[in-house]
């Protein structure tokens, strides 16, 4: 119903485009040079006049139609229904909607309800007809307006570009508003959480045990929401990952940018970037099923106690995963160091490795630091590998051979399955998410600042 109206409107606008174009030719007496803009702009101008007003009315109508009709139906109901308290009235309206759409209703429909349903259907049909008429006539009116406005002096090109401009602005703000929406939703839930659990306990508590008793007679702990063990676990695993990723990534970047032949580079660089394309789930079971038992075996043979899910296994695999982040970005910044720097160093009798150590790395350092910080925020936010390989026990330990848990893992466990959204246990996930968001945001801002500073140096 709504779709077919939309399609008709689109069809109309296509027609409007050709009409506008033809009109432009006519007013120009067949010579395009008499026109301010190219004929296609007059076509687009007409099409936009056809589409935009009609579409906005269309959108408004679709948004408000149902509420309006229900108000009318309620107004037409017998007084004993109409004067019910709001929550009961709500139930009646729901029944009514179900009745209209042919779903099951809560009780056998009484005549008043049936009459209301008929009223509703009648109004809805009327509404749809009115919508068709309004939208299509608005579209035609728009075309007529544009048709009459078209003259050789009409600046159709500028008008069309203004509209395009508005579209571009709207598109770019969607991402911003989405971020804002996410932040706000997390913040509101967190505020509720902090009303139940003091913020100081959350930030500085050393105990994480989110199980709470739902009923008074239930056995269960009262819950402890100290996030320190989680952040410590996150830090430990990210630290291990960076110990792997930074040296390997940096050295492969140096090799690729300074030593490798172009042929080798053309093969090796994409191959390295394939690592970034492997789904993290695959990394996860690689860590859990291959790396973790391997580490455990080695550890046991050396007489060490290794947990079957260790921070080391998760950290190692995560390190491998973020190698391409470090290497690819570092490779780019090292390549961006001007050739004249290398020439200057070689001309003083420096060898390649002296040039790299003393000129290239210092010059590229800000960019490299930026790439590392981006990799760190990636490591902190990584979920799948740690869910599968790091375990769930919130140990506060610096021993990489023990099982630890991370912020992301806890969020996942808190929010999977059926949840009641008023217990601190569930709300804690939002507080954790907020903290994680703030941490990675700060890291990203620092990284971008550092990278920007580096760019200014050579441009």
């Amino acid at each position, binding site marked *: 119903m709504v779709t077919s109206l939309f399609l008709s409107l689109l069809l109309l606008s296509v027609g409007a485009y050709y009409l506008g174009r033809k009109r432009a030719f006519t007013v120009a007496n067949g010579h395009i040079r008499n026109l301010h803009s190219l004929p296609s702009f007059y076509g687009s101008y007409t099409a936009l006049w056809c589409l935009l007003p009609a579409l906005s009315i269309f959108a408004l109508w679709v948004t408000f139609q149902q509420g309006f009709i229900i108000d009318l139906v309620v107004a037409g109901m017998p007084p004993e229904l109409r004067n019910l308290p709001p929550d009961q009235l709500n139930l009646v309206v729901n029944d009514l909607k179900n009745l209209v759409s042919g779903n099951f209703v809560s009780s056998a429909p009484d005549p008043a309800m049936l009459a209301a349903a008929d009223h509703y259907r009648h109004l809805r049909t009327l509404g749809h007809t009115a919508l068709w008429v309004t939208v299509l006539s608005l579209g035609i009116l728009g075309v007529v307006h544009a048709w009459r406005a078209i003259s050789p002096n009409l600046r159709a090109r500028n008008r069309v570009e203004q509209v395009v401009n508005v579209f571009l602005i709207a598109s770019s703000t969607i991402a911003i508003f989405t971020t804002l929406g996410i932040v706000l939703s997390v913040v509101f839930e967190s505020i509720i959480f902090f009303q139940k659990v003091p913020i100081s306990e959350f930030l500085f508590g050393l105990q994480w045990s989110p199980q709470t008793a739902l009923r008074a007679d239930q056995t269960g702990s009262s819950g402890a929401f100290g996030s320190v063990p989680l952040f410590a676990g996150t830090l430990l695993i990210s630290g291990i990952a960076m110990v792997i990723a930074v040296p390997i990534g940096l050295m492969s970047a140096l090799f690729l940018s300074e030593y490798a*032949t172009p042929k080798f580079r053309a093969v090796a660089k994409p191959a390295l970037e394939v690592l970034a394309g492997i789904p993290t789930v695959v990394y996860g079971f690689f860590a859990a099923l291959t790396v973790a038992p391997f580490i455990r075996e080695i550890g046991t043979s050396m007489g060490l106690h290794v947990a079957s899910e260790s921070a080391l296994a998760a950290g190692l695999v995560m390190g491998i995963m973020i190698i391409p982040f470090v290497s690819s970005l570092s490779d780019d910044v090292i390549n961006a160091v*001007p050739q*004249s*720097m*290398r*020439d*200057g*160093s*070689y*001309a*003083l*009798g*420096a*060898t390649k490795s*002296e040039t790299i150590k*003393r*000129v290239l790395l*210092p*010059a590229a350092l800000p960019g490299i630091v930026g790439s590392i910080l981006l990799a760190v925020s990636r490591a902190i936010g990584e979920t799948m590998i740690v869910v599968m390989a790091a375990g769930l026990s919130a140990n506060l330990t610096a021993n990489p051979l023990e099982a630890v848990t991370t912020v992301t893992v806890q969020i996942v466990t808190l929010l999977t399955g059926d949840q009641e959204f008023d217990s601190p246990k569930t709300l804690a996930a939002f507080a954790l998410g907020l903290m994680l968001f703030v941490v990675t945001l700060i890291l990203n801002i620092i990284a971008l600042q550092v990278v920007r500073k580096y760019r200014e*140096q050579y441009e």
Partner: protein
Amino acid sequence: MSTTIIEVKASLDHNLANPETRQSALSSAQITDYDHRQTVGKITVDNPKMICRNVNVYYAEKQAIKHVSLDIGANEVIAFIGPSGCGKSTVLRCLNRMNDTIPICRVTGEIRLESEDIYDKKIDVVQLRARVGMVFQKPNPFPKSIYENVAYGPRIHGMVNGKAEMDELVRASLERAGLLKEVDKRMNEPGTSLSGGQQQRLCIARAIAVNPEVILMDEPCSALDPIATAKIEELIDELRENYTIVIVTHSMQQAARVSQRTAYFHLGDLIEIGETDQIFTNPRHKLTEDYITGRFG
């Protein structure tokens, strides 16, 4: 060392055998003079620092330099002039093997520094570049402090013992480059904070610091304003006392002002070489005359 004039035969036969080359040569206005591409003038000097004989440079298959032979005298300033793309910078970069950094570049012939063949396999190119320093077209100070820029070379070559000696060497090099007075109080500021002319003098100080025998300058003033240019030219004249200087320049006035000998290159050939005064007042080759009178280039 022999002082006879060495005539260098241009390999014209080979060119005429190739119809494509001949056709493009025929369409060129300079065809009449182009037939004799031996170098005009005396290529040798009494006390040569560097000797180039029959040097050819190829970029992949394309020959960029054809049979160039010339001497570079000790403690002289020799200027390489010629239109863009004539190969003067390429010859310059052969003299300290900077062309090695370009994978497709191939050099044949003989280039000697004093008596050593610098393209010999036994030569350590890193040591060679410490003896033959280079200053580039665009000032390229490292993103380090002024002090560290100058200390860079001595440090990697282990030329000094201790901080005091290094301080002394850095100050002496800056002094010789005529920059000490301007930067004395700001040694720890980044080299990039200086003006263009100061940066170029910093690059010269950096080159001097490793105590080279020859300094190659690739259009050192082309990115500078006239005042900074005048300062560098003055500096070049002073440096001649201790160093041999080869300068590539697009400015004929500059060549006339700073050099004792001038070499004119054209499309990969060394056309004419001689005393700077003679080249600019009384060129013997038609192409040289056309170039210095501004008929092309």
